[in-house]
């Protein structure tokens, strides 16, 4: 076969010409030589010899030889030169979703890719044909018809060359398709792109499905799907009327088709329908969320103090015959899984504020900053939303999970406590419907454990839990992990903001530089240091001798952990216990000396201020002549008293010479005032 040599030239090898058209190679060579320099006749493309083959130019051969050899450039079909596999179509069809939901099947995609490629070729051919016809003054009438015929006959070419077939219409519909394809491109080839094509044949159409769901959801007695099937049957047979409460529309049974109970049950139980009806019917949000709502997936924090998760919990033990269980409120540091704060009590409400106090106490005494973020349930904590739990007050961030058990990490720790630690303890109460049989209720009777013992046992268990191995670092305990991996960027406790909400309130006053609280005289301080000098005087000016509120928090041993003075609702200063020193000089230690010095400078500050104030005052006196009586109508007769003399005192007249007469200066220019006189 002749083959394309370069660009547009086609080469023919000698074997194809000899002996078919030239008997001997010599005669071919002679002829090649003869026409070598002539503008016509057969021509060489390449000289033979030295490994090369003699090649003859196909175009220079006589037409009958050309016809019998066949031109490789010649298109077998008018569409062939324009046909190529479309590069955009596969992507388009692989991403297309019918009706926005269903991806096309792969064989359907394949079909459309073939069709799209053919249609693209048709568009190119159409343009070429228009040009050709215009050039030859040929009418454009019948152009589409000629294309339709080409598409039809192209099928053979596709079958033989590519072993595929297109499914384009070759009827009158081709014209519409061509127009559509020009406008909408690939979309035009998709059958039923909106996915509504099969809707007409449906027995359960959208309206029927809605009515089934509505009957299932809205009836207050919570019917079963079987009930709905019965209802629907009654509706179709005219025994029941179905109406829309909002619009007043009465539904006509003739508009609905007969359905089998199984169909109705299946439709009601479809996920997308249960999703909508379950919430309204069940009312248990936790179960609804567990069943239908996807949850966030997060990575665990690695630094202690990043986030603390808190929740209440009733350990499964009872402390009286009524079956009451103790309330615990736990806070777990998520990264270390260490339970850092525990409070307990007999009711849930009473322990929450105490829980936050306990957290402050614990973290302060351990010397760590409060956690950065809090994760808690909504019911009790929401009341602190705008005070203690406002971001920036106690925690920098607060995540209140409203009725979303899965949202809090501590639930996982509660599970661990329950099944890994507490389960073997005496009096543990199983859940009647626990998932695992091993965790279900046994036939054993419930044991009552006295409250104090119960609490003590639980606290010991929490200790055990904190001292057990950290799941990510089995070499160290949870508590060790907590201690070793404190986040470096935690903010120090903001006492000024949290104490008004957390602290105990005591009304007291400042006398002689000391504020009395809990029976002890406390000195004025700031930022944990007792003030002296001018700073002390500044604060004393505000509070000395006045009544004010002190908010304070007690430590784990009952001592005052922190006490802040608030005057008229404004934070003023801190008060601290004054360090004492030994009265006997011989017994004094270095600390005592420091205490002595501090106390001395505390006292000296006031003394100095007194002196300074005193020196500011000059020796100013007053003579007060205010009459003390209204008149002198009442008099004792025999009493001696001061009497004013009757003669008036002589008054000297001033010298005449001293009088200075005022003579206004006369000016030549008359005053403008004169004009008005």
């Amino acid at each position: 076969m002749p083959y394309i040599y370069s660009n547009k030239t086609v080469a023919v090898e000698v074997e194809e010409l000899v002996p078919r058209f030239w008997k001997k190679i010599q005669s071919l060579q002679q002829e090649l030589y003869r026409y070598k320099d002539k503008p016509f006749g057969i021509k060489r493309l390449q000289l033979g010899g030295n490994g090369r083959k003699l090649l003859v130019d196909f175009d220079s051969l006589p037409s009958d030889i050309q016809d019998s050899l066949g031109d490789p450039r010649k298109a077998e079909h008018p569409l062939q030169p324009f046909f190529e596999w479309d590069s955009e179509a596969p992507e388009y069809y692989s991403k297309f979703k019918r009706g926005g939901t269903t991806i096309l099947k792969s064989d359907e995609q394949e079909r459309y890719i073939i069709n799209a490629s053919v249609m693209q070729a048709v568009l190119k051919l159409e343009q070429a044909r228009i040009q050709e016809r215009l050039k030859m003054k040929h009418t454009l009438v019948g152009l589409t018809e000629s294309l339709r015929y080409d598409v039809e006959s192209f099928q053979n070419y596709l079958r033989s060359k590519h072993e595929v077939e297109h499914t384009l219409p070759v009827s009158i519909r081709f014209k519409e398709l061509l127009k559509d394809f020009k406008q909408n491109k690939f979309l035009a080839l998709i059958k039923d792109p909106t996915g509504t094509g099969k809707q007409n044949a449906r027995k359960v159409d959208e309206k029927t499905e809605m009515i089934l769901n509505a009957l299932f959801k809205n009836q207050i007695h919570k019917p079963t799907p079987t009930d709905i099937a019965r209802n629907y049957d009654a509706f179709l047979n005219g025994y029941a009327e179905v109406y829309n409460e909002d619009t007043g529309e009465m539904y006509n049974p003739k508009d609905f088709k007969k359905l089998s109970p199984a169909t109705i049950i299946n439709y009601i139980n479809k996920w997308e329908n249960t999703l909508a009806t379950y919430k309204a019917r069940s009312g248990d949000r936790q179960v609804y969320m567990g069943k239908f709502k996807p949850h966030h997936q997060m990575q665990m924090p690695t630094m202690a103090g990043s986030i603390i998760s808190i929740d209440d919990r009733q350990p499964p033990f009872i402390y009286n015959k009524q079956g009451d269980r103790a309330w615990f409120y736990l806070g777990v540091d998520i990264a270390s899984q260490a339970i850092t704060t525990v409070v307990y009590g007999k009711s849930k409400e009473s322990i929450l504020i105490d829980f936050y106090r306990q957290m402050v106490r614990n973290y302060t005494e351990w010397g760590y900053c409060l956690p950065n973020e809090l994760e808690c349930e909504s019911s009790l904590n929401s009341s602190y939303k705008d005070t203690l739990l406002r971001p920036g007050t106690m925690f920098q961030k607060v995540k209140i999970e409203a009725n979303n058990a899965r949202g809090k990490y501590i639930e996982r720790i509660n599970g661990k406590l329950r099944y890994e630690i507490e389960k073997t303890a005496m009096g543990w109460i199983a859940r009647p419907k626990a998932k695992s049989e091993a965790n279900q209720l046994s036939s054993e009777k419930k044991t009552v454990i006295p409250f104090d013992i119960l609490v003590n046992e639980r606290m010991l268990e929490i200790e055990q839990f904190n001292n057990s191995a950290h799941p990510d670092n089995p070499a160290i305990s949870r508590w060790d992990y907590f201690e070793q991996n404190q986040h470096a960027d935690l903010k120090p406790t903001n006492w000024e903001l949290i104490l008004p909400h957390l602290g105990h309130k005591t009304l007291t006053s400042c006398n002689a530089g000391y504020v009395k609280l809990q029976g002890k005289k406390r000195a004025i301080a700031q930022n944990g240091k007792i003030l002296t000098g001018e700073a002390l005087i500044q604060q004393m000016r505000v509070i000395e001798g006045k009544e004010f509120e002190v908010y304070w928090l007690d430590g784990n041993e009952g001592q005052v952990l922190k006490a802040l003075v608030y005057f008229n609702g404004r934070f003023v200063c801190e008060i601290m216990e004054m360090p004492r020193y030994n009265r006997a000089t011989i017994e004094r230690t270095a600390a005592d000396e420091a205490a002595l010095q501090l106390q001395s400078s505390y006292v000296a500050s006031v003394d100095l201020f007194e002196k300074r104030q005193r020196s500011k005052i000059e020796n100013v006196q007053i003579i007060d002549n205010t009459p003390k009586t209204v008149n002198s109508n009442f008099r004792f007769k025999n009493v001696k008293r001061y009497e004013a003399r009757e003669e008036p005192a002589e008054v000297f007249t001033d010298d005449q010479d001293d009088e200075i007469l005022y003579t206004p200066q006369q000016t030549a220019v008359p005053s403008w005032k004169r004009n008005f006189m």
Partner: protein
Amino acid sequence: MARAISLKTLYEKRYEVYDFNGPWLDVLGNPEKGKVWLIYGDEKNGKTMFALKLAEYLSQFEPVYYISAEEGTGKSFQENAMKRAKLDVKKANIKFLEYTELDEVEKILSKRKPPKTMFFDNITVYNDELAYGRFRKFTMKYPKTTMVFIAHEERGEPYTATAKLCKRLARYILRVKGMTAFVSGSCPGGTIMIDEQSAQLCHGSQIKN
């Protein structure tokens, strides 16, 4: 006095015909020699190329004279013959003439061994010489010469009145349109593709059948 012939004589009459084969046979059958043919079509639709191909084919049977009156034997005509029609220099028994006055042509035709086939490319050039009934006289004068006239087309008809007359008198009419010759007249009829590629581009694959 004219002599009428009987039906038997008519049936027994023998004519000289071209012994065509291949696609030519399918479309034109075996045409009778010495008749008038007309090739017409719009410009650049392939008239000359087709005429040359036909001339080459007819030259297999009898020598052909091709009067290239319009184009002459200039470069474009040479290219048309060599590159497009691809006439085989060894086989084609064709002689070319540039524009020759009709009287001269008549002299050629009146020779003792006149050419049996003559192409006139194209009739417009000979319009003056063939007008006023001279066309009929001229063609009837040489009944043994097959004359192929080539004419322009205007509004779907051959251009100039002479060409129209030629169409009426011609036995074989070949209309060239979009590199395809549509054959009609006293023959089976059909289409001959002058250049398959261009013909299919213009008319679609339908033209093949």
